[in-house]
């Protein structure tokens, strides 16, 4: 599903992430590691947020640099600690992102209801709690018809009821649309009830299969 080769990411000449070769099968993959181990950098790089050297190939077809638009149409990302302009509302952001990701009709409303974002739909994000921001970022990450969704710390700040609905939805997407997911979490990921395809350890910028 996702192949990474010779990936190197450096900040100001200091290498922070090295992935010589990584092949991920379709499914749900869990990336674990301590603070500052490189998980978020890896996710942001795969999401196309950071410049890097190397290749990232989705479904043996879409290369992140060669096919920037097609790749990004199929890869979505939810940040661990989302920040949005304080004057924008969930409606403004979903409208913009939904249009760019070509969200199918009715998807925004269904997701807003599922995650409870509809209850603060027209409220400026400056008045959001961290949990509300998290819900909005998760909603944005589900828009369109992604083949791969990267969820950085989806459990943090999310209330139990919403988390249960979210993971139920993820399970459905996995089964019915063959969507793949990469997750990071400092919480016990087994609580999500998801069938984890692979677990990976990220340590000092190196990704290895977890034992």
């Amino acid at each position: 599903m996702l192949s990474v080769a010779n990936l190197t990411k450096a900040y100001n000449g200091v290498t922070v992430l090295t992935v010589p070769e990584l092949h991920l099968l379709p499914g749900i993959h869990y990336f674990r590691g301590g603070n500052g181990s490189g998980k978020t950098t890896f996710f942001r790089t795969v999401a196309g947020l950071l410049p890097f050297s190397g290749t990232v190939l989705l479904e043996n077809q879409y290369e992140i640099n060669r096919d920037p638009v097609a790749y990004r149409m199929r890869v979505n990302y939810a940040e661990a600690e989302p920040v949005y302009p304080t004057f924008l509302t969930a409606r403004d952001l979903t409208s913009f992102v939904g249009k760019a990701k070509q969200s199918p009709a009715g998807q925004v409303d269904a997701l807003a209801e599922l995650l409870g974002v509809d209850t603060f739909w027209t409220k400026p994000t400056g008045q959001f709690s961290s949990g509300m921001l998290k819900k909005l970022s998760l909603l944005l990450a589900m828009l369109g018809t992604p083949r791969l969704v990267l969820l950085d710390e989806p459990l943090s700040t999310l209330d139990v009821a919403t988390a249960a609905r979210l993971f139920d939805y993820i399970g459905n997407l996995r089964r019915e649309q063959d969507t793949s997911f990469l997750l990071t979490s400092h919480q016990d990921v087994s609580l999500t009830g998801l069938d984890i395809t692979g677990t990976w350890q990220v340590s000092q910028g190196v990704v290895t299969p977890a034992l």
Partner: protein
Amino acid sequence: MMVMLALLNRVFTGPFYARNAGTFLVLVLLAFGFLSANEHRALIMAALGSPFFLAIVFVLWGLYLLKTVSFVWQELHAPEHLFLQTFWLVSTPKRVVLWLTVQTALLFPVLLYGGWMLQIAVQQGWWNLFGAILIFLLLLIGAGALLADFRLRHPNPDTLRLPHVSIKLPYELFFPTYWLRHEPLSLVLTKAFSGLLLAGVCRLYPTDDYDQRLLLIGLLIAILGHAQVGGQVSAFERKYLLLLPNLPLSWVQRLGRYALTYGLLWLPELLILLRNCPEAIRLDYVIWLWLSGWGWLLLMHSMAYGYEVLPERWLSGIIAAFVVGLLLIMFGLPVGVWLVLGWLGAVVVWYWSFGRRNGTEVTVPQ
């Protein structure tokens, strides 16, 4: 107390001078490049001899104070500085002393020039003026400290409390709204400078045998007055719209959206040009002029977006652009060529920076 002061200086004083290094460099170049010490002394004597002139100096100092206060308020509101709320717990006298020290450091250029004026006032034996300047300088420091402390004790989400309008905001309005709500001083100063300059040049036109080059020079300066906007857009999106590079938009679509944003920001200048258009100038020329300005704004955006450009380097580029632009205008480069150069340059630079590789790369802070 010294530890706290060191921290406050690292949060406010250092970044303030770093961020405005370019502006200070221009001021120093203008003030001491063109004027000798004797001429400055003559200027100060003139200011001390005329209440009106002195009032202008005070107004300029007041504007500088506003700039420092705006910066402190903005930094106090920044999420990375929320820890400073604990500063509220420090006893009021100690806090006031710390704010006064920080404000003194921020007002240093004004105090330096004010000190020179005070010295001359003493030499001349003008004790009334000495007292007036001294009191005004102390008021500036006190007002700055009080306003900073007020913000600390009254944190609120928006710098400018505007009512929330319940309409769907399109992406093209994200930055203009941010600019208006969070950096209103910057917006007002930029647009006032540009608008007044263009209106002034248009009104100056019929007073002598000027040709269209005068309007082009006005346009050039008005555009350079917007030089910082590209960096502001870039900083805004890097901070608040991290998801942008993940969106499946081609480099053309992205540039198109920025073109619309800049078109909106540049729209007031069209109205000003049309309203003040000299009779000797054809309407279509004014339209070409405005379109050229739009293209050059977009070119500056293409050059600034996504890069951490050092203020000194950016300023050197602006000064060089002014000199080269002035020469080309004086040599008679027509507005049509400026129009093509601006728009073509914007597209080429944008493609070179973001289209060649993956169309979306931006430098996102770690």
